[in-house]
């Protein structure tokens, strides 16, 4: 076997050869283990060439002058662990050391390894390798350096009531955050390694007796088909495995909230957790998942349903308000009451530009302000918002470039676009209103209607991992409406969403049994 062989599925047979060709001296089907410890070390160090953070530490045992070598990558191991778990026990028992006691005493994580081809991977995964004078085997101890930040609340997904924990850049902590919420033996975690060079670890998490096996298989298939040198960000994976990359709509939910992920897992969905990224993706999703926020379930259900209405309403406002304005102003001013027509006329009379240009100008200004304030420090960001929002807004009207009404329309639209509790969806909406504005400027209401038809048909034919994206509206599932347009009370949510075809559909929310009046 080759030196590079890893227990992963993503590299197909023929590619394995391709990879190993580059290190021909190591590639040999009759691999003979080297005899001395120095030779062994040399072989193991070979693929790393001359990197300076790969350190060898020699330990000489006092009793019989035997030499033991520790091999680790300086930058990614915790030296304190090495000291406490390896070196200290070694010195304490150095008098009567033999193989058996060695394995028993040193560390909980100690593993005996005989496969030398794995050594490279182990080193990269923050292991410390221990070489004794027995050339047929070596030991590995996991000694990762913990430099995690706190589980702070994600900046872009704040809630009023509910957990304020957020994912961080460490995959095992993230998995732990999910496990903390779902203490079920049925919660399965499956690791994948992506990227031939980066070896990014991706964990696929699902509840075994809920998630539909066909979806699990589909996700696995798409993940393993990724062949790339570098898979750096969740975005890379998203674009590699989503159904329609040309759609403006996000087909996976990205969230940094463990409670949101846990709730979705319990509905039978699958979560993808990435190493070095606080973003977790949830698949398969439908359009309405993007409109659910953990807050909804902590407020009273009537209020929760009201918020849902507001959010879905904001979808229409954000997409179509400027285009409606343009259509009315340029073509159909008969539609609005005559009193308002006069008002509009007086505000529009002195504007030299066509309404489309006005709207485009203002929309682009808002986008400029947004883009500028995202990158900046909070304090400067608010300055930009004031300068951009108030000063430009006020003086552009005074200068006579844009009408009063247009400022109102654009401002309402901008607020509406940010109501969606998902950044991706908000982006999609902001983008979609430009074609709609163009259509409204060319064909008025007719253009808007045609654009909406195309938009909704696109949603009808969009799939997220084989499940219809626009469910439960198209295809229509009446029972699933309870968690889309409404947020029904907990005891009404007795079934999981049909759309994602969970194995177990009933949710057994049997509460309020004491209430005999019902």
């Amino acid at each position: 076997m080759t030196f590079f062989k890893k227990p992963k599925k993503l590299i197909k047979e023929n590619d394995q050869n391709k990879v190993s060709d580059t290190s021909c001296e190591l590639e040999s089907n009759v691999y003979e283990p080297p005899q001395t410890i120095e030779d062994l070390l040399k072989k193991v160090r070979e693929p790393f060439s001359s990197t300076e953070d790969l350190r060898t530490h020699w330990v000489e045992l006092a009793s019989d002058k035997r030499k033991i070598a520790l091999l680790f990558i300086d930058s990614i191991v915790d030296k304190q662990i090495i000291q406490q778990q390896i070196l200290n026990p070694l010195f304490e028992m150095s008098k009567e050391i033999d193989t058996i006691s060695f394995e028993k005493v040193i560390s909980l994580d100690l593993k005996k390894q005989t496969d030398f081809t794995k050594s490279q991977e182990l080193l990269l995964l923050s292991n410390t390798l221990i070489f004794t004078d027995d050339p047929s085997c070596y030991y590995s101890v996991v000694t990762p350096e913990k430099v995690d930040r706190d589980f702070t609340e994600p900046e872009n997904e704040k809630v009023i009531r509910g957990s304020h924990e957020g994912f961080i850049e460490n995959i095992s902590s993230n998995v732990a955050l999910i496990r903390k919420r779902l203490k079920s033996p049925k919660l399965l975690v499956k690791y994948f390694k992506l990227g031939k060079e980066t070896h990014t670890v991706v964990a696929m998490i699902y509840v075994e007796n809920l998630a539909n096996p066909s979806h699990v298989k589909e996700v696995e298939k798409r993940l393993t088909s990724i062949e790339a040198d570098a898979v750096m960000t969740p975005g890379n994976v998203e674009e590699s495995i989503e159904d329609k990359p040309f759609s403006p709509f996000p087909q996976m939910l990205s969230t940094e909230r463990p409670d949101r992920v846990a709730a979705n897992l319990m509905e039978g969905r699958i979560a993808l957790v990435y190493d070095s990224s606080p973003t977790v993706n949830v698949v398969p999703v439908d359009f309405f998942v993007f409109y659910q926020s953990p807050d909804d379930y902590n407020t009273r259900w009537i209020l929760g349903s009201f918020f849902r209405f507001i959010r879905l309403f904001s979808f229409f406002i954000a997409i179509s308000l400027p285009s409606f304005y343009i259509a009315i102003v340029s073509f159909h001013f008969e539609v609005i009451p005559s009193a308002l027509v006069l008002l509009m006329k007086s505000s529009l009379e002195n504007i030299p530009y066509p309404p489309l240009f006005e709207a485009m100008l203002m929309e682009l200004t808002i986008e400029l302000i947004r883009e500028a304030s995202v990158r900046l420090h909070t304090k400067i960001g608010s300055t930009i918002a004031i300068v951009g929002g108030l000063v430009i807004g006020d003086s552009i009207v005074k200068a006579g470039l844009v009408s009063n009404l247009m400022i109102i329309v654009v401002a309402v639209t901008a607020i509406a676009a940010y109501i969606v509790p998902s950044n991706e969806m908000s982006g999609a909406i902001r983008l979609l209103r430009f074609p709609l504005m163009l259509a409204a400027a060319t064909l008025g209401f007719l253009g808007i209607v045609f654009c909406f038809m195309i938009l909704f048909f696109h949603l009808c034919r969009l799939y997220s991992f084989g499940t219809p994206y626009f469910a439960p509206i198209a295809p229509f599932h009446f029972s699933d409406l309870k968690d889309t347009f409404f947020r029904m009370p907990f005891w009404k949510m007795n079934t999981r969403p049909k759309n994602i075809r969970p194995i177990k559909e009933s949710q057994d929310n049997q509460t309020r049994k004491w209430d005999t009046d019902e």
Partner: protein
Amino acid sequence: MNKHTITYRQLFFVIVQTQIGVGILSLPFSLFTIAKIDGWMSLLLAGIFVQFSILAIWKLCERFPQQTIFDILPKIMGGKLGVVFNFLYTLHFLFITVLILILYNNIVSKWIFFQTPGWVIIFTLAMVGVYFISSTPRELARFFMLVTPLLLVLFFFILYAYTDVHFLYILPMGETGFLTILKGSKDAVISLLGFDAALVFLAYTNGTSTKKLKVISFASLCVTLFYCFIIFTTYIFFNPMEIVIVPEPVLYMLKAFSFKIIERTDLIFLSLWVVSVATSFIGYLFVTVKGVQKILSLKHHKKAAPYLGIVVGIIATIPSSKLETLMWSKYIGMTSLILSVFSPILLLLLAAIRNKKEKEVISS
């Protein structure tokens, strides 16, 4: 998972959306010119006639399960004649889509865009149609279902007319005599066209045979009643002398209403009506493209879609005057009567005589 099949419930929406179309606006007027105030009875009569055709279509498709009319024709007629008839039917459906475009253009250029060149209005819808028909029947059915609530909005708009109606206008009933009513039902049948889309969509429908029949019949019943409601409402809103001078009574009626927020209800109505027109256009365009696929034996109908859209659009721009439009609608109406209403019955007879029948192939 086969993404092409639709459920029998979805078939209901496909038929309803294909049937309701351009006719809504002008039907009350065109029926009035023939059957006077008994026009609504003509429509009910037409609804009954249509049921016979539906029965024939259903029986025909039951004999050849999971096959569209374009598969069935060669089997009944034999190879060469079948190809000729396939061509004929494709052309027939193509001209129905053209007619829809022409009538839609007429209304739009009369009520919304007076100066926009016709070809812009026509090609916008044609291109939207192209996007739609490059999909599967299931996705179409989902969309048709999605937009069906809009019909309820139209219904409520018209219901508002009942604040100002005079039931006496409808009397005396049956004054024109049965023959005139029967004559009027010919025009009414043409406006009810759309059930013939079942010739293709039945092939994709799951469910038992009786359920399919029930669904199509019920769809046609709903549409007949909806149309009847519209006609009836306009006849009691306008007095008989007025209708003669308003070619689109529904719109004139709505134009009279104004609310505190919306001044011109008819424009909103028209915008929603466009969706209905588009769905019937799309339904027929899909049927046509299936025919084209069969004739050219294409692997997927997607390839033919853009060309078909362009062809349909170009043909629809040909009639320039109102007289020509009337001619076109007269001739296309006639061929529709023959090919969509009568010939399914004949085809069924032919199939029965020649005893052509096929067992259902259970596809995995």
